[in-house]
């Protein structure tokens, strides 16, 4: 029996879950070279996305409104979630809370979360929880221009640059003086490929506005929903909304008219569903939500969705969806502090004081958590049902 040609071996290996491949790095030096090759990693990621193998939710446990530990929940089958396991993340430090910024493919961007204003020097890391490796971004100072007394994060976002096959972090710091409207911004971009930051001349385009949604990476472009600032300081932004985009390849900001017409001013949640930008809005505090799917900038189709209740989902927020991938194979290992066994933890209901709105997309399923005083329930919608309205 002749040995199988290398193309066939590659094909077979690309169908294996991450855990098996990490083990098979040991089989021989040629298998090691094959598995670690960037082309194979790409092929494997592609397969993984297609087949939902290794699909895992990384969740942040939120207690008293503050993000806390991370957990991973494997869910190979639609609407079926395995038990949650505590996950040690690389920025684990005493007294410091870590928050998930965003997730692209299977790379999760996390950073230290703090309520303080001057948190610009906190650590940021890019982490692949399925292979348990990470890379901490090099600390990058900010250069405060003269004439300003205060600084704060205006925005920080993570995305995949299609053109350059690179993962990037965008950091925008705002400088201001109390009581004065004028702000100046410093915009920097970190590239995973070059493991370095760069300042770019491009300016945050809207001086008097607040970001009213999470950021979402789609087709190599970061997106946010932003609203013009109001005279008073409110949590809930009012005013004209628009869609802000940052093209990671050409590193330029673009502003678009938002396709969403809302009657009530609530924060918008952005997601990616079926390769399209998706705006999730609750028209009022009821059980229904409006989901707008944007095919092209400025145009979107609205769909009102009712949910199908699913059980078993841990009631936490700020999630990332990982698919199996070997991205970041040459990072640092995550060390478990105290080397405790993975344990299942009791779920607790969390009641939010403010109306916060999170949604996440689990391959083809949009999951939108909701709360009432009795606890939390989760509604999920299957894309076929959802897109039935889409002609």
């Amino acid at each position, binding site marked *: *029996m002749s040995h*199988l040609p290398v193309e066939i071996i590659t094909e*077979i290996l690309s169908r*294996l879950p991450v*855990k098996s491949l990490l083990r098979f790095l040991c089989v*021989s*030096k040629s298998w090691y070279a094959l598995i670690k090759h960037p082309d194979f990693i790409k092929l494997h990621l592609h397969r993984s996305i297609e087949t939902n193998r290794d699909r895992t939710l990384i969740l942040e446990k939120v207690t008293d409104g503050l993000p806390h530990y991370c957990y991973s929940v494997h869910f190979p089958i639609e609407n079926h979630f395995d038990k949650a396991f505590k996950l040690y993340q690389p920025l684990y430090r005493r007294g410091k809370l870590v928050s998930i910024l965003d997730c692209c493919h299977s790379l999760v961007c996390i950073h230290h979360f703090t309520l303080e204003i001057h948190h610009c020097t906190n650590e940021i890391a890019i982490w692949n929880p399925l292979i348990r490796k990470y890379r901490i971004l090099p600390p990058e100072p900010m250069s405060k221009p003269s004439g300003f007394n205060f600084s704060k994060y205006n925005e920080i976002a993570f995305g995949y640059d299609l053109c350059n096959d690179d993962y990037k972090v965008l950091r925008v710091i705002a400088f201001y003086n109390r009581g004065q409207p004028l702000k100046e911004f410093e915009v920097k971009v970190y590239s995973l490929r070059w493991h370095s930051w760069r300042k770019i001349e491009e300016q945050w385009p809207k001086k008097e506005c607040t970001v009213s949604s999470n950021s979402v990476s789609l087709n190599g472009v970061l997106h946010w929903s932003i609203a013009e600032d109001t005279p008073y300081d409110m949590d809930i932004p009012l005013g004209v909304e628009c869609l802000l985009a940052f093209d990671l390849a050409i590193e330029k900001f673009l502003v678009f008219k938002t396709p969403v017409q809302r009657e009530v001013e609530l924060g918008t949640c952005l997601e990616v569903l079926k390769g399209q930008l998706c705006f999730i809005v609750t028209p009022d505090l009821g059980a229904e939500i409006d989901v707008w799917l944007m095919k092209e900038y400025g145009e979107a189709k609205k769909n009102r969705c009712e949910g199908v209740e699913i059980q078993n989902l841990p009631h936490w927020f700020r999630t990332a969806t990982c698919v199996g991938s070997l991205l970041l194979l040459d990072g640092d290992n995550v060390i478990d502090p105290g080397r405790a066994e993975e344990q299942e933890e009791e779920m607790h209901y969390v009641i939010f004081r403010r109306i916060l709105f999170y949604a996440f997309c689990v391959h083809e399923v949009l999951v939108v958590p909701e709360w009432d005083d009795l606890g939390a329930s989760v509604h999920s919608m299957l894309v076929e049902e959802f897109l039935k309205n889409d002609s």
Partner: protein
Amino acid sequence: MSNTSENPKPSSSSAKMTLKTSDNELFEVEEAVAMKFCTVKQYFEDEKDSDVAARGSTTVIPLPNVHSAVLATLISYGKKLPQSNAVADNHEEEETKKKERKKYEQGLLKNLMPGELLDLISAANYLDFKEGLEFFNQALADHIQNKSVEYVRKFFGIKNDYEPHEEEKYREEYAWAFEGVDED
């Protein structure tokens, strides 16, 4: 074991082709199925070009790299695939066929020895039988997914070219990936 009893009732005047294996077995196969083996398709098309009267004549296509037992399985699998020239089924018929195919596939895999998978993959590759290759590649991936490093080396006939201390280093780095592996 002769397979000339592979005479299906002529359903729609589909031409048949004869394939000859490495152990000199002859297989009569419907053209629709044989065309899924792109190597055969290529051979047939080359023959057709060179001999005007070739179509329908008793051309025997030699497959010196394929054993009869292996070809039998591949043909059997090929027949269960949706035929490209078949009339489009309605949704219900399609669902039933899908279920049938799933059942057939499960039965097929249950009766296969792991070593046979390697032969099937090799043959499907030689025949350029895309659907068969995909199916058996996945079956093999499923089979080795939870196996140990030693099993995989033995199975594929791979020599371990690591120094002991090198191998030890990787085993430590990814210790958690070695947990819960099947016993050899």
